[in-house]
């Protein structure tokens, strides 16, 4: 009995690592850049399809394709911000919401048109089913790798944002765009770089999502919902909070799913709402 629950908690925490990766990019855009990206989930799905296509064309393991896609994802984020999103950044929070909602529709329908409605997964070859025995528990290598990447990404981004020079510039610009421009710190450039970093997290999220779960062109919004819950649970602007939020949501879903298969998603939402009511500022708030 104890062993079962320990197993559930461990498996849930590992699933939570994936949720945290979903959320880290959104945490940057919502918590730091202060705009809500409705298309975040769709961007992840789009990147999953890109990885799928490249991996089959290049005949390479998807984990080896990922490093090739990361610079591309940075550039895509940079260009998207510079050419489109930058025009709607400002006092009106509704504008980025509408623009990214439009992008979400474009991505979903573009994918339907381009790759069809079939459900897909990514494969990492033998790694897909490899597992290790730790303390009597059988743990998948892939979930373990996902979790390790989530931890590294959360702490790495936290360092970047709160300890590095670029992070200081991002926080300065997002705090007061006019003041930054006035003294010669280019807000346009800094915003674009920040969105490029979001792009990198999207590519990583896409890889590990595709390896773990099925996706099709309309999967984006459900990923967005998870990412949102994780960001709010963790506290706006807190990347380590997002890691913790992801783990809590993953454990809640796994335990809920054990009680009754239909309860998996619901249990996650209930835990989210409960914590949100008790601690609306999030678990590790930065602001």
């Amino acid at each position, binding site marked *: 009995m104890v062993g079962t629950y320990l197993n559930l908690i461990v498996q849930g925490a590992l699933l939570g690592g994936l949720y945290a990766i979903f959320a880290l990019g959104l945490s940057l855009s919502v918590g730091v850049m202060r705009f809500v990206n409705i298309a975040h989930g769709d961007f992840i799905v789009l990147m999953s399809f890109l990885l799928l296509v490249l991996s089959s064309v290049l005949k390479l393991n998807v984990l080896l394709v990922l490093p090739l896609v990361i610079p591309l994802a940075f550039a895509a984020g940079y260009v998207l911000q510079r050419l489109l999103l930058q025009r709607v950044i400002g006092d009106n929070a509704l504008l980025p919401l509408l623009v990214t909602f439009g992008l979400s529709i474009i991505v979903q329908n573009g994918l339907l048109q381009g790759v069809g409605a079939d459900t897909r997964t990514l494969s990492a070859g033998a790694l897909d089913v490899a597992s290790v025995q730790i303390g009597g528990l059988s743990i998948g290598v892939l979930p373990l790798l996902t979790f390790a990447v989530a931890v590294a990404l959360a702490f790495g981004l936290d360092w970047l944002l709160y300890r590095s*020079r670029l992070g*200081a*510039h991002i*926080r*300065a610009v997002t*705090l*007061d765009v*006019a*003041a*930054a*421009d*006035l*003294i*010669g*710190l*280019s807000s346009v450039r800094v915003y674009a770089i920040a969105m490029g970093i979001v792009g990198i997290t999207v590519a990583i999220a896409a890889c590990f999502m595709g390896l773990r779960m099925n996706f099709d062109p309309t999967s984006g919004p459900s990923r967005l919902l998870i990412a949102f819950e994780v960001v709010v649970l963790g506290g706006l602007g807190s990347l380590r909070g997002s890691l913790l939020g992801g783990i809590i949501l993953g454990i809640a879903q796994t335990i809920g799913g054990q009680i009754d298969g239909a309860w998996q998603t619901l249990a996650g939402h209930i835990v989210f709402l409960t914590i949100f009511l008790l601690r609306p500022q999030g678990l590790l708030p930065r*602001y």
Partner: protein
Amino acid sequence: MASTAAPPLLTIEGLSVHYAQFRALHGIDIAVGVGEIVSIIGANGAGKSSLLKAIVAQAGPRVEGRIAFDGIDIRGRATPAIVAGGIALVPEGRRLFASLTVEENLMIGWHIGRRGGLDLAGIFDLFPALRDKRHQPAGQLSGGQQQMVALGRALMADPRLLLCDEISLGLAPTIVNDLYELLLSINRQGIGILLVEQDIRRSLAVAHRFYCLLEGRVSLGGRPDDFDRDTITRHYFGS
């Protein structure tokens, strides 16, 4: 003041700034020599801040005239290029990034500037009060200390021309005295200073030359000693 062959540090000719429904500056001419302190005085709305913003390309798209720095026309350049070229602004109201630490605020000056001048240690020698507060959020400092950070941030950009917009606003007189002492010592190192102030007495006391703006035009200009108080006041208020 102007030396024979070398061009002045900053030459502004026929500068006009338009906003949506009105014109803030009407073709003004202003010069700042190397190592000179030039004071811009004028009432509220005379166009003082528009002048400083136009120099750093932050006065919007409708700016006409010539702005030459070191003999080279810089109008049309973007703000980061102008700052990296050696012009730093201490903005009105300081405009620090409140949740960033003192050190982070100062370092932004280093990143945007020429990187040849004072480093962090130099700034803390200049403003010892900031040393112990370097890891505190800038928003927690007193007004005077925040003004030190704003000035320090501009100095870290290693400017040849320092633009100061109302740096004494809202500060205690003793702190303002200290700031002006400091401006003089900065100036003695050869940095030109363009000083915008509403406090006529104080800014004229340190200035080599001054310009008085009235409704977007230069109403009076010259050396402070050349005019008596009444003449300056008359051109200040336009009566």
